[in-house]
């Protein structure tokens, strides 16, 4: 059983020398995040698995060349997100080919809940997930770790992100602010507060 407290730098160092256990540990540690970003982009299970494979193959390939092991979480977040967007674009191109009338949806609109979803209790969750996917990778990674159940300690989060514990609080605040200001969430909050929606000039 690998030591779960080993910090990310150490594990990456071992993995890039070819250590299979260290690699397995990286996957165990980061798979929930990769999976979750895929699902937040509303990818199907099959598409999420496909994105996962791309991400891990790409990481295996780049591992010997990673100069800053501490950059791994950010690299993973960016790569996963780009792959999700690529999958969504591919789906959109395919949909356009099959149904040319349906060309005006952009990726942002794809992520917004459909009108029917407004009726469901899950709408707030859908909006929050959509807003979450719009955050920069470092915020996604930090907020993801801050919302684990059971909760992780700041010390553990600091270790995983290679971030001083003292920096977590301020970053938490900044990232939550960005989340709040995400157009999807901000728009939804305004609509939620003013159901008539005719207060705009």
């Amino acid at each position, binding site marked *: 059983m690998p030591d779960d407290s080993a910090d990310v730098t150490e594990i990456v160092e071992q993995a890039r020398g070819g250590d299979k256990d260290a690699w397995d540990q990286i996957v165990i540690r980061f798979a929930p995040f990769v999976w979750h970003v895929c699902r937040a982009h509303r990818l199907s*299970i099959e598409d*999420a698995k496909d994105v996962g494979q791309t991400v891990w193959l790409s990481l295996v390939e780049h591992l010997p060349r990673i100069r800053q092991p501490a950059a791994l979480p950010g690299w993973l977040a960016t790569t996963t997100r780009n792959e999700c967007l690529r999958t969504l674009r591919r789906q959109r191109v395919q949909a356009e080919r099959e149904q040319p009338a349906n060309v005006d949806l952009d990726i942002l609109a794809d992520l917004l809940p459909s009108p029917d979803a407004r009726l469901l209790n899950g709408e707030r969750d859908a909006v929050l997930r959509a807003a979450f996917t719009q955050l920069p990778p470092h915020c996604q990674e930090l907020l993801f770790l801050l919302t684990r159940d059971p909760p992780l300690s700041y010390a553990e989060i600091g270790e995983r992100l290679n971030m001083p514990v003292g920096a977590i609080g301020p970053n938490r605040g900044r990232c939550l602010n960005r989340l709040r200001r995400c157009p999807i969430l901000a728009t939804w909050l305004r609509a939620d507060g003013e159901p008539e929606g005719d207060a705009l000039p």
Partner: protein
Amino acid sequence: MTNDWTDDNFLLSALSHALRDMDDPPPDFITAGQSCHAWFTIDSELAELTYDSARHHDDAATRAEVAAVQALTFTGSHLTIELEIEPHATHGQIVPPQLGEIEFQVPDGEAIRVRTDEFGYFTVAFVPSGRFRLRCSTSKGVVMTTSWVTLDAPD
């Protein structure tokens, strides 16, 4: 708890609920990731995809031509590999020309190997689809692996 969206603790717990509601990765998502370690290589140079005709429609004379043959170029610091993927065969060349072996690798399957002639040319009755990469080793001692590429499934 009141719905005070300006409150960090409320926002975080709402996000927490939204994210928690999502499923955990299935076990095969993790094992699939772990098995990618099989493709770990430390000895070879990495060549990146630098040209893909499917993404450069403007360069091509007609779209029909593009559809019939997909051309890919992988560039490394010692070698370039040109690939032309036709409906029933794949042709290619390594530049500068030299004898060598090209291996088509796919994530879950057997590799296809082909030797180049002295001019670096090779032809194989194999058409990659989905995800693959090339590994090339030459008589001059170059060992190079390309990045993984994913070809869109034909319509």
